[in-house]
């Protein structure tokens, strides 16, 4: 009976990939019209909240952080019939209210050309963020962005804290990293621009982003810090609403199709969420695949979500000043 399925997701090249690779097939197979509502994670989440009484969107594709919120607020419906055995554990959510469609590693990005010119060694550790030679040339996404949050968690963990206690992380950020930071920048576009204009040379970022940035020909590379990179997910969920269309679940599941997973790896640097997927070696130079994926640190989201509000407040007042 439903004629149109509204899928909300990232804009830009991701939208293009979905439009080219997923939607035509899906429309044909299910005899439905798919409208793609482009927007970044926070925009999509805001729309969900604004239209809570009368949801228009059927499927939402957002970052993991916002997805936890969406689940908490009850925006997500339940997914049935996931290929649970084939999915990495990290890719699954409580009650299957969402599922990861790609895995990204949070680590360090640096400008290889500048480093070479200055004779600097490539960074190897989270601790390199403290190096004073990067003064005002470091970019870190803020805490409301998963990259920033994970950087904080990693630094806490290395200094005797962890998800339950981030005091040490905050202290390091405040005293040692902050002077180096040019900007706490959540927007990927802005991040690339800061690199392109030469204002920044090193950053905390994810494999997917760095991969596509490097694809443009810009001299950047990704580093898995020796203390370990953190897992970050791109996720999707069907929206919870009266008379929700079963097609919403089908659409999410279609994103887990091996063929699509490979496309997203190729175009977008997303590590696949399927254990069974064979990755051709020429793909996935940076992406967390195989051994690299296994070594990723998976933050304890239950603990984090508990404290997140408080941390954000603290971050705004102590770090971003």
């Amino acid at each position: 009976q439903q004629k149109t399925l509204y899928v909300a997701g990232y804009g830009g090249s991701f939208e293009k990939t979905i439009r080219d690779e997923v939607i035509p097939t899906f429309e044909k197979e299910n005899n439905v019209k798919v409208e793609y509502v482009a927007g970044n994670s926070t925009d999509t989440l805001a729309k969900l909240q604004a239209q809570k009484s009368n949801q228009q969107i059927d499927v939402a594709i957002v970052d993991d952080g916002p997805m936890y919120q969406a689940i908490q607020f009850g925006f997500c419906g339940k997914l049935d019939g996931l290929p649970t055995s084939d999915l990495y554990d990290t890719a699954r959510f409580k009650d299957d209210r969402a599922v990861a469609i790609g895995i990204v590693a949070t680590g360090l990005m640096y400008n290889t050309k500048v480093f070479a010119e200055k004779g600097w060694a490539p960074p190897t550790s989270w601790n390199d963020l403290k190096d004073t030679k990067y003064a005002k040339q470091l970019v870190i996404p803020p805490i409301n962005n998963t990259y920033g949050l994970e950087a904080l968690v990693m630094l806490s963990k290395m200094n005797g804290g962890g998800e339950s206690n981030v005091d040490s992380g905050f202290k390091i950020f405040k005293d040692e990293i902050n002077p180096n930071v040019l900007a706490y920048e959540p927007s990927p576009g802005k991040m690339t621009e800061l690199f392109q204009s030469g204002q920044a040379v090193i950053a905390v970022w994810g494999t997917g982003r760095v991969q596509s940035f490097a694809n443009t020909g810009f001299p950047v590379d990704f580093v898995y810090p020796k203390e370990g990179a953190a897992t970050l997910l791109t996720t999707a969920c069907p929206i919870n609403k009266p008379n929700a269309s079963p097609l919403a679940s089908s659409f999410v599941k279609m994103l887990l199709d091996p063929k699509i997973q490979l496309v997203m790896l190729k175009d977008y640097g997303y590590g696949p969420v399927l254990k069974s997927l064979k990755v051709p070696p020429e793909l996935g130079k940076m992406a967390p695949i195989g051994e690299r994926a296994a070594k990723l640190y998976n933050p304890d989201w239950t603990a984090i979500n508990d404290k997140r509000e408080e941390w954000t407040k603290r971050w705004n007042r102590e770090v971003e000043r």
Partner: protein
Amino acid sequence: MSMAAEERSARAPWALTAPALMLFVGVLVIPLAMTVMLSFHDWGQYKGIEPVFILKNWREIATDPYYAEMFWRTFRIAILTTLLTALLGAPEAYILNRMSGRWKSFFLLVILGPLLISVVARTLGWALLFGGNNGLVNKLLMTLGVIRSPIPFMFTETGMVVALAHVMMPFMVLSVWAALQRLDPQIENAAMSLGAGPVTIIRRIIMPQIMPGVLSGAIIVFSLSASAFATPAIIGGRRLKVAATLAYDEFLNTLNWPLGAAVATLLLVALVLIVVGSNALIERRYAEVFR
């Protein structure tokens, strides 16, 4: 020269404003009222928005000096931006107006230019000019030996003010320009014949007469700068938050809409008070020009 209309039926102004008023009540007042209501609701990380009536958000804003700092910065930037646009934009409008027809329209368009491209591309331009060591201007000045280290521009308040003034400039220039169209050139001649130099003419004769235009421009610029999001966010970055970026954060990142709504409501109320206050003040001061 007063007109009967001015004194006649008190209905006329209401008839004229009725359509706009209906539009505003219909589609702006209600959403805004909903937003104000929102600011009294509760919010929690897990429960989301709770439609109860509490003063939590307002109390937080009132007691936490963090917000005072944000608002103070917001208004500081808005005031500086307004001053800068008025100080540069009004003279420029005046100069433009004295050019011959063709040049006049040409430069008017040139000045409107910045508005035609998206804020993203515009701020990109600033980054290319002033961003770090590679900024064009910085590079040039450093090779010329004028400066030692790059001028800090990105992620500074100065940069924010300059970039905002740049975007807002057309609003000021155009407002003043529209007001200048009404001036009788003979009046300028009269002042000149009485011995007034160019500066005096501008200050004593032109300025008071174009006050409606400057006021319009200033109101637009001030309000827009105080509620601007993109430019402060991109040029200022997250460490130099202003009220709008704060509200943005609460709305989009934290999803704490009640708090964001409180910040926005406060900003709106403050702006309305400032604008209406200064408007009334200036209209009274220059009553004869506004008749």
